[in-house]
């Protein structure tokens, strides 16, 4: 069995870098990668809060009604409402009072890109966006960045068909708002969730980060779809019991 060289691509979009690794490249899958990249840029045009002319910006300013927006806007806002309910109100599509569904959109965009590759026949690829990763097939080894020691990892997750999302303060400082107080959440240095599908895993990680360590771990333990790794500001770690099965042993 000779493995072809993996197809790799990095794309600047949504204010970050999306990276693709395709272990089973074919011309069809290469074409799907091109479409996935176009899809990311289209999602950015509709949902970016940094573009004054995006549907989301115009909707937030009251210049558009939901019905006048791209049809995916209503769908995304519905998903956000679901996540808010699933996380007992610890997720918001209006952090700081301004319409901003980014907490859902980025992970969803990564998952969409992966879906397009799968539809073209790829069952061995990894797509990452801003440090949140969706893998298909495997095994894949995903490092979890140490939030307090730059350049180091605090854990390595390994397995098949995993979604890994990390929310943290290390690079951008406190930037995730507690939706209940409107103030930055500071109880954790980082919170990583390991699940299967990135859109929900990523949005849940944002919510769980805002919860702080005790509530986040208790909440994650009630949700068998995900396992959690929490790094506290003093560098100590806590995790859900089921995380162990995802940790790389070699």
């Amino acid at each position, binding site marked *: 069995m*000779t*493995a*072809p*060289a*993996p*197809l*790799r*691509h*990095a794309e*600047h979009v949504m*204010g*970050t*870098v999306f*990276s693709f*690794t395709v*272990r089973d490249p074919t011309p069809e899958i*290469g074409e799907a*990668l*091109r479409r996935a*990249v176009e899809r990311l840029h289209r999602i950015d045009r509709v949902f970016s809060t940094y573009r004054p002319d995006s549907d989301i910006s115009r909707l937030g300013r009251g210049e558009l009604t939901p019905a006048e927006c791209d049809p995916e806007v209503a769908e995304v806002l519905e998903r956000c409402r679901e996540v808010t309910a699933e996380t007992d109100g610890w997720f918001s599509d209006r952090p700081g009072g301004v319409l901003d569904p980014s907490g859902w959109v980025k992970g969803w965009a990564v998952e969409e890109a992966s879906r397009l590759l799968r539809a073209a026949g790829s069952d061995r690829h*990894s797509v*990452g966006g*801003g*440090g*949140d*990763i969706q*893998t298909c097939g495997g095994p*894949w*080894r*995903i*490092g*979890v*960045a140490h*939030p*307090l*020691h*730059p*350049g*180091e*990892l*605090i*854990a*390595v*997750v390994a397995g098949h068909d995993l979604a*890994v*999302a*990390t929310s*943290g303060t*290390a*690079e*951008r400082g406190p930037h995730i708002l507690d939706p209940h107080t409107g103030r930055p959440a500071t109880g954790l240095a*980082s919170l*990583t969730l390991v699940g299967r599908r990135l859109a929900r895993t990523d949005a849940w990680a944002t919510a769980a980060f805002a919860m702080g360590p005790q509530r986040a771990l208790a909440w994650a333990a009630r949700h068998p779809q995900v396992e959690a790794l929490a790094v506290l500001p003093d560098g100590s770690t806590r995790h859900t019991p089921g995380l162990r099965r995802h940790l790389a042993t070699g």
Partner: protein
Amino acid sequence: MRRAIVAGTATVAGVILLLSLKPHNSGAGAVSSRIISSDTSSTPSSAPSAGQSSPAASAAASPGSPSASATRTVTGSAIDTRYGPVQVRVVLDGKKVSRIDVIQYPQESGRDLEINSYALPQLNQEAIAAQSAQIDAVSGATYTSDGYTRSLQSALDQAGL
């Protein structure tokens, strides 16, 4: 589509060191005051060792690269960011990125230092990790320094990768 950030793959002890789970207390303070390097070239690229069974090791032997053994250095464009210019230099063994140095980055103020001491090693790590046989990707390493990746991209574009 052809602007892949990393075209080759490598089995590299340097990366493994960089990504080691062992605690390194020297990390955060040391990095902001010197050129930040990620050396990945501790294994000669022309001699894949027999015991290696990683997929990347086999991929590294892919044909069609006549100058695969040449080592060259390519300097990326200096990219202006809101914090100042960022510039990287890439060392290539054939088509393989063996080292990335950040040769210019903002250091005028404490805030810049703070930003750099966090962002750049992380960026190095992720750029290198993308071609590491040991780690396929890093979660939690976001690219906040657009300048780094754009300079790196320009270097790789110049190199024809």
